[in-house]
């Protein structure tokens, strides 16, 4: 059995409550951490090589060391629980089943950063998890882990859960900060970065739920031990949300460096493609990352088996590789239409674009309309090139990464599955699928 650091003990009774969590070793890391100096906690995290689990994979210790420390200005830690990437559902699972690991991780991290107020910005749709967290925070206050003078150290911390209104863009860190301040969730223009001017123009660190939870095992087992798990610069364990045409969809905790083939086919994890079908394509890290055909996913361009790690998945650049992203592993079998899937993704980005900068505001809608045209059977060969051109004019030209995220799936689908687009051009009239519209729009057929 592979090492599980985050979603272990889920079968134990009452693990969602403070008493149950404590009975299985909970809050030991906090008691250890408050005896250390804040800088020592930061250096443990730096030694562990932990990288941001939200998608970008930026080293967490380095992010923490960047935070500005002007005297007399408060600092803030914000937990990004606005998990809304299609295909990713790991944070929700963790918060629902084991809320205290997030709270403990946040207390340790706030202590390390010197923040006296911290926020969990949770997606508006996750009301169920919001109430679980509220309850867990109250338990932590009652037990003296939060509030004034935590564990007799003289360190104060207040922790709040703030629900958003359900916008994907508020998962972008500066959009999140704006929304947290009560404004329209438009991403800010950087610089200044949140580490210098974040919440209420004060230095702020924004971390993903899983990243902050991973601080707990790091303190428990020391950073050096944690760094031994995994492979190369991808250390530790990662939660993967596996979905799509597999036998066992769900959230799995893997040690980074696990071969993709083992993850996909072993009974311990996904259990292979359902109904004995063949693998066609995989979106390996949530809808924003490039889609890869099965054979390119299992083998790197050098012919070596691909591993579940930041480096191995991105080997070969965007032409031949993809990204680990947030770990939303969407598997598609041979019957799946890449064009239909792409239309659905693009529809999502069109719907979620904040409308601030023109390439993303106008371009996402345009791409969706063209893809719709393909599905209607009216696409032309020129439209494929047009689609390619539009995405190239969005990619890298926008304020926040939503523009990039909208253009990468389009680029990769055309790159790897151009023949499918051509098939729609040649034979689109017969490939129209009215049931598809009913399905994706949750409508009942007339």
């Amino acid at each position, binding site marked *: 059995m592979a090492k599980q650091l985050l979603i272990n003990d889920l079968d134990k009774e009452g693990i969602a409550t403070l008493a149950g969590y404590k009975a299985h070793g909970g809050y030991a890391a906090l008691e250890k951490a408050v005896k250390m100096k804040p800088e020592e906690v930061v250096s443990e995290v730096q030694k562990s090589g932990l990288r941001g689990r939200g998608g970008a994979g930026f080293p967490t210790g380095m992010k923490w060391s960047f935070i500005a420390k002007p005297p007399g200005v408060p600092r803030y830690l914000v937990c990004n629980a606005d998990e809304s990437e299609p295909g990713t559902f790991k944070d929700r699972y963790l918060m629902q089943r084991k809320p205290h690991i997030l709270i403990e991780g946040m207390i340790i991290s706030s202590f390390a950063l010197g923040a006296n107020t911290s926020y969990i910005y949770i997606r508006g749709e996750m009301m169920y998890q919001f109430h679980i967290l509220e309850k867990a925070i109250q338990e932590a206050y009652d037990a003296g882990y939060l509030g004034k003078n935590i564990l007799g150290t003289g360190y104060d911390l207040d922790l709040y859960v703030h629900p958003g209104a359900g916008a994907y863009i508020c998962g972008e860190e500066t959009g999140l900060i704006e929304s947290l301040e009560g404004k329209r969730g438009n991403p800010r223009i950087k610089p200044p970065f949140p580490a210098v001017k974040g919440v209420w123009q004060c230095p702020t660190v924004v971390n993903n739920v899983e990243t902050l939870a991973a601080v707990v095992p790091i303190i428990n087992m020391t950073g050096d031990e944690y760094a031994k798990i995994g492979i190369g610069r991808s250390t530790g364990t990662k939660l993967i949300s596996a979905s799509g045409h597999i036998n066992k969809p769900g959230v799995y905790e893997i040690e980074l460096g696990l071969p993709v083939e083992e993850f996909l086919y072993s009974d311990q994890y996904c259990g292979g493609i359902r109904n004995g079908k063949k693998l066609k394509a995989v979106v390996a890290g949530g809808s924003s990352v490039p889609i890869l055909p099965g054979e390119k996913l299992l083998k790197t361009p050098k012919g070596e088996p691909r591993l579940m790690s930041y480096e191995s998945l991105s080997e070969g650049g965007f032409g031949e590789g993809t990204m680990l992203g947030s770990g939303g592993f969407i598997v598609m079998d041979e019957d799946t239409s890449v064009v239909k899937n792409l239309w659905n993704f693009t529809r999502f980005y*069109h*719907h979620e674009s904040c409308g601030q900068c*023109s390439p993303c*505001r*106008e371009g996402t*809608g*345009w791409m969706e309309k063209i893809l719709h045209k393909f599905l209607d059977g009216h696409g032309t060969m020129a439209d494929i090139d047009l689609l390619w051109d539009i995405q190239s*004019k969005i990619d890298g030209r926008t304020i926040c990464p939503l523009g990039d995220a909208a253009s990468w799936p389009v680029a990769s689908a055309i790159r790897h599955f151009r023949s499918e687009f051509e098939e729609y051009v040649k034979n689109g009239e017969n490939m129209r699928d009215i049931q598809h519209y009913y399905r994706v729009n949750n409508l009942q057929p007339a």
Partner: protein
Amino acid sequence: MPKVTIDGISIEVPEGTSILNAARMIGGEIVPPAMCYYTKLETSGGYCRTCMVKVVKGSEKDPRPMPKLVASCRQPVMDGMEVQNITSPEVVEARAGVVEFLLMNHPLDCPICDQAGECNLQDLGYEHGKDGTRYEFGRREFEKKDIGDKIQLHMTRCILCYRCVKVADQLCPSRVHGVMNRGDVAEISTYIEKAIDNEMSGNMIDVCPVGALTDKTFRFKSRVWFTKPVEAHRNCTKCSGNVRLWFKGEDVLRVTGRKDQWGEVKEFICNECRYDKKNVSDWVIEQPTHVDRHSVISQNHYENLKQMKLDTQRLKAKLPEKKTNGNTK
């Protein structure tokens, strides 16, 4: 003072100057166009992406180029920075793309638009755009709305530059104006249709780069090129009173702020000056307005632009063939 080189021309500028403002100090053709940036409005800029430039050398200390195109209106210069604007085919191409995006849902109703002739989007399309559009779907439409009794909002023409939102934020005492909805259906709106009624709200008309916010006292009175601008002033208790009057014959058809060569007003004016003082006797006339190259009133305006366009085409001809299924990313 940091020294920056834009398209091969070097200039020393004060600390914290943006690339756009450094380029404006140099002047001429190397100045990137700006649709949303407005010097007098804080935190404006960064939205429209027309002013994107390429930074080929970050600074003397860190000479690495910036990986993406940057919005020159919000990026401060560093010492030793090297910037490419019109000398970079990538920038020219990207800008043409942005113009296409901006015009995609724009109604192009210039023949009936009051802004025609002094519209930034017209100039932008003419100077940096392509001949046609590849967009073949329906354009989005909104109902016309009244914002207060003197301003009409025609959202269909809006390019969401956020300038008027910043005016509401920064000039008007209580904010009643913002953006509703998101993505390509986002719209400028007042809170539950509440009319804007305060001293400085009329400046929204001046800052609007397109014909989305128009002066109802001037709507459909005249094309701008049939009016004659003169500089004038009066003693005003609410603002500086320095304005521009637009004459047709003997009549003052409208009053606006004085705009500089970048299309930005020098001083914001109050609503009393703008709407209520339309008699010549209200004003002390100073001199005729200097008509710059951005005005359609100027002679040979489009002749000069034609030459510029030829230059741009020559630049584009040098572009390498585009790959349609580019394997390099």
